[in-house]
């Protein structure tokens, strides 16, 4: 029973993390039809911003040694800035191109960012230790102890989700964004400033990436220049399984992927555990075959003739 509770909490925390990532991708996709493969690399850049730029083996903290509140603000600001700059310098110029081209552009951007990091920081992994108090265990009841960080991830996710929902439903710009996600051209005809809405989507997506940087780096304690790539793949899959362009879908997809992968590694027999990822991806294909438009259907996702 204790093991079950621990697995559930671990599944929820993984799911929350994937849900946040999927939201970051889903926000951009809903207004721009862009699948941002550089999203994972935004997280990586945020992580490397914590330390002093040098190729030394031992990382020296720069922003990482600030007061936690200041640290949070700085990292989020840096990632948001990166997201905005990448919109104005890169994505703005290809926003009318085919989705395939935009996808490759975002990949090229991610590739460039990774190698800029290698150029400045060197290719070796670096150990960093932020918020050490969060990696400890907490006793929930007799025999059930979980990492504090897992609870923090779940809590942060839900705070952000509620804030995002309030923002999208209660504020003027939030409503404009939802209108643009529903039908971009129509929204523009009704007076929504397309450029602002897209820039806002980049800000929100960058902000989410900044917060995820801190959660992720606290968890792993290591910075590598490719660390954004594998998590990005899971975000991407979560977005598609949930239903492209639907924010509820992104959350549902994130939780499904996270929960399924944790549960699979808990129940698969020892000799098959290595094949967990293969099983996850076979499930992905099965889900897609059953619901090609994703688990959550949006009105905009239905193809019109």
């Amino acid at each position, binding site marked *: 029973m204790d093991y079950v509770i621990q697995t559930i909490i671990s599944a929820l925390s993984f799911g929350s993390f994937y849900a946040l990532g999927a939201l970051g991708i889903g926000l951009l996709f809903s207004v721009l039809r862009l699948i941002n493969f550089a999203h994972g690399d935004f997280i990586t850049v945020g992580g490397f911003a914590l330390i002093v730029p040098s190729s030394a083996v031992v990382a020296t903290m720069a922003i990482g040694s600030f007061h936690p509140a200041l640290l949070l603000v700085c990292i989020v600001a840096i990632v948001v800035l990166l997201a905005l700059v990448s919109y104005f310098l890169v994505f703005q110029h290809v926003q009318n191109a085919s989705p395939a081209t935009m996808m*490759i552009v975002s990949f090229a951007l991610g590739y460039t960012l990774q190698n800029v990091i290698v150029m400045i920081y060197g*290719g070796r992994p670096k150990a960093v230790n932020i918020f050490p108090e969060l990696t400890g265990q907490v006793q929930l009841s007799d025999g059930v102890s979980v990492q504090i960080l897992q609870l923090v991830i779940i809590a942060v996710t839900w705070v952000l989700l509620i804030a995002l929902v309030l923002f999208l439903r209660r504020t003027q710009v939030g409503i404009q964004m939802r209108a643009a996600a529903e039908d971009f051209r129509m929204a523009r005809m009704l007076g929504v400033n397309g450029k602002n809405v897209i820039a806002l989507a980049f800000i929100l997506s960058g902000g989410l990436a900044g917060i995820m940087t801190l959660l992720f780096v606290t968890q792993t304690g290591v910075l590598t220049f490719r660390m954004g790539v594998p998590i990005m793949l899971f975000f991407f899959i979560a977005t598609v399984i949930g239903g492209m362009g639907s924010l509820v879908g992104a959350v549902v997809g994130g939780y499904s992927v996270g929960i399924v992968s944790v549960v699979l590694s808990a129940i698969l027999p020892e000799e098959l555990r290595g094949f967990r990822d*293969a099983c996850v991806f076979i499930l992905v294909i099965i889900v897609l075959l059953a619901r090609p438009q994703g688990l959550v259907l949006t009105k905009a996702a239905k193809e019109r003739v």
Partner: protein
Amino acid sequence: MIEANTPLLRKVRYFWPLIVLCLGLLIIVAIVDSTGDIILAQTLVEGLVRIVIVVAIYMFVGNSGIISFGHIGFVLIGAYATAWQTCCPYTREMFMPGLPTYLLNNSHHFVLAIFLGGVLAAVVALIAGFAIMRLTGIAASIGTFAFMMVFYSAYLRWSTWTSGASSVIGLPTTTTPWVGYAYAVVTITAAFLFTRSKWGLALRSSRDDEVAAKASGVNVFGQRLLAFVISAFFCGMAGGLFGHFLGMLTVDSFYLGMTFITLSMLVVGGMQSLAGAVIGVVVISVVIDVLRRLETGIGGFSIPSSSAEVGVGLILLLILILRSSGITGNAEIYWPFKRDVSSEGALRRQS
């Protein structure tokens, strides 16, 4: 002479996009071969293998409009299938102890081994495609991606057949520039003929308007599956070529890095044209090679380390920003002479 409307000239005109590409590559191969530079020859062979991969991907992606992230999975399957047949006769049991007795004790000729590698990839594509090709648009892309991940992680763990995370060493290095050229020409010809065939036409109609294509009686699922299987066959062969070029195989080399570099080549060249596929490979390979050489230093001048990769990324971005439909703009290289022989003939027949 150009105005003459002979059957031969009409054929030349029809096959012109193909002839130009093959001749262009022939000139490049001949020049590199005559310099005798070994490092240059290596770059060339790698480029030729990439042409096989990218043209094979073009057959499916260019004609169906579905971005496939899965074709490197077929390259992986083909590469290992070939290694089972040709690799290291004396140490094969050490690397891959799980192979059936027949494969452990017999080696096939390089050409046969590569062909069978392609066949295995095609068979897998037929089975996987039977499910994945029912999807459309982005869902189909994710389906192919999931397929690649399944095979990647399975091959990584299946150590009795693939030697798992460590590498298989000792494949005969039989992929010379001319062998690579031969396979590139075969693949380009196949892609050209497929694109001009009725199946290619049907598939492109589904790319441009799926609903209209269905309404006109095109079996979209069947056409996609056909293209998927054919392109998987050539990707599988490319895997075999790649293994016999490097002389060793690791599962990790057939993963996201190769997926994205090949897709970038296709998109940079122009996703919907055969010429684009070839030109994309040539341009990006040249850019990579030049920057790598600058990094190691030429004549006392060198750029900082790993700035070559940054440069490649920036050039990719620049090309896509300036020409979002690729260098060729999705066009083929057509007959360059103004007077259109066949349409003139058609006019004469009408009057």
